């Protein structure tokens, strides 16, 4: 294809003036790019925040918390403590450890005859910094460890962290296992929010060493819907791409309305290659504006939505869709006969 003499820098200058110049026809598309970029970021951020909140709420109710114990109360089983605690830190597992009832205990000044349980520090990591955990509903909150009398001994206590309600940390005293506790009735495994329970159950069970009778694992909360799957399959996930296509249509229409202007370039000696380059640069300036707007909105929203990466990536997807679709719908103008283009007004 024939080339002309256009210098690259001057072609860029031409594209900038055609898009951002005073009174440019493309300014309406630039405004659309700003709105689409920021709107897409806000929408994605809002959706992400909603699903995270839902996951947190369900996690507090026991979602993705697995409890392994004997299949039947008539056939008790013992799970080796070391095999249970070794699960902590594995891929997809937040914490794991044994958990057993431990009768009642007097902890002064918290109260007398309080329900007690023993749990691994790998299950409740805050146990590593104190002798016992005090349930949040048993005493007023203390910011730092405090001294209590447990039975006849002085002990340091901290309030239990936020754990699923059915694990009992909220309304009881939680003690670490005794050195001689080599086995336990229950092993509790807390998976991360994105792990699949059906896949994890057999994999975890296979790693536990069990004596006497067989065990089975159940999830503390069996939710009827999975928020992660719902999030991944929501129709709204296509909105940024849809906005990209909408922007592409607007861009292509605006470029086509400028056919007689493109004729001016062609009849002035500009080659089809340079016209293609010019149109590509103009489109990139517009979609770059959309991506920049998406990034700016993501950063502005970051303090409220924690992670700006997701809306930013969707902003890039929007800009990419916009660029490819707009150019596919408009680049044919560059190779049309200039005298025909001149008649398209």
């Amino acid at each position, binding site marked *: 294809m024939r080339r002309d003499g256009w*210098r690259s820098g001057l072609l860029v200058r*031409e594209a900038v003036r055609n898009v951002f110049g005073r009174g*440019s026809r493309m300014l309406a598309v630039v405004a659309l790019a700003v709105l689409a970029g920021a709107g897409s970021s806000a929408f994605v951020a809002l959706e992400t925040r909603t699903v995270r909140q839902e996951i947190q709420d369900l996690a507090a109710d026991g979602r993705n918390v697995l409890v392994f114990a004997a299949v039947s109360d008539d056939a008790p089983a013992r799970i080796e403590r070391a095999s249970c605690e070794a699960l902590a830190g594995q891929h997809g597992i937040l914490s794991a450890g044994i958990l057993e009832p431990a009768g009642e205990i007097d902890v002064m000044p918290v109260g007398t005859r309080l329900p007690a349980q023993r749990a691994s520090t790998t299950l409740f990591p805050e146990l590593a910094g104190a002798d016992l955990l005090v349930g949040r509903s048993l005493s007023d909150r203390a910011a730092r460890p405090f001294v209590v009398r447990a039975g006849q001994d002085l002990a340091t206590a901290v309030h239990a962290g936020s754990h699923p309600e059915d694990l009992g940390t909220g309304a009881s005293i939680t003690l670490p296992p005794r050195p001689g506790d080599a086995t336990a009735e229950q092993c509790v495994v807390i998976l991360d929010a994105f792990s699949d329970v059906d896949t994890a159950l057999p994999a975890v069970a296979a790693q536990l060493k069990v004596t006497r009778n067989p065990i089975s694992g159940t999830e503390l909360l069996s939710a009827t819907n999975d928020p992660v799957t719902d999030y991944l399959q929501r129709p709204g996930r296509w909105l940024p791409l849809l906005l990209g296509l909408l922007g592409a249509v607007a861009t292509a229409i605006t470029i086509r309305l400028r056919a007689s202007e493109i004729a001016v370039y062609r009849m002035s000696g500009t080659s089809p290659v340079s016209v293609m380059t010019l149109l590509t640069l103009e489109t990139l300036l517009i979609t770059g504006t959309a991506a920049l707007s998406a990034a700016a909105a993501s950063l502005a929203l970051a303090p409220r939505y924690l992670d700006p990466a997701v809306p930013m990536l969707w902003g890039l997807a929007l800009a990419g869709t916009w660029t490819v679709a707009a150019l596919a719908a408009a680049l044919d103008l560059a190779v049309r006969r200039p005298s025909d283009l001149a008649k398209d007004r």
Partner: protein
Amino acid sequence: MKSVQVDVVDAAVRFGATTVFSGFGAHFPSARVTALVGPSGSGKSTLLAAMSGYQSLSAGRVELRDDPDSPPSPPDPTRVAWVPQGSNALGRRSVLDNVAIAPLAAGAPLGEAHERATEALEVVGLGALLHQQARRLSGGELQRVALARALASGKELILADEPSANLDAANTELIARILDRLTTRATIVVATHDPVLVAASDATVHMRREVSGAA
């Protein structure tokens, strides 16, 4: 400035079963204005496109020569400036920008392109409107902008397709005078129905409408 002579030899253009013209031959002398006349549909615009290299011939050839004794070369869009029918312009850009495009496309740096554009606009009498937005101009002024663009391009062959269409008599005469002045710089072929432009031309080439082909 150099200009070229153009010879069209036994040329034909067909679109499917439709023949636009066939067996056509003509000579367009160097550094002259030649009027290309004929009824609508006779193929004037198609012939201009063929002379510029934008349209392939079905038969025959177009030959460009720098002088009568030099070897012929085929049509080449990079040697041709085209003045379209109507008022094509970058409407939201200044008159200067509209004209500077041509030297920029030829590889001139920005400063030189502006100098050549300014000079060309002076030649066509628009020196006072350099920074006016093109969409604010009248049809006649836009036609002169197109001529200035052709002049600023420095091309040896200017092909004008009905440059006086929709212009009043005064503007048509002005265009005719400008075309005459441009012959010092280029060979000019004007497709036109306008008797004023025909009368002002140095030569006239007639085309007739083909009767063969599909309806």
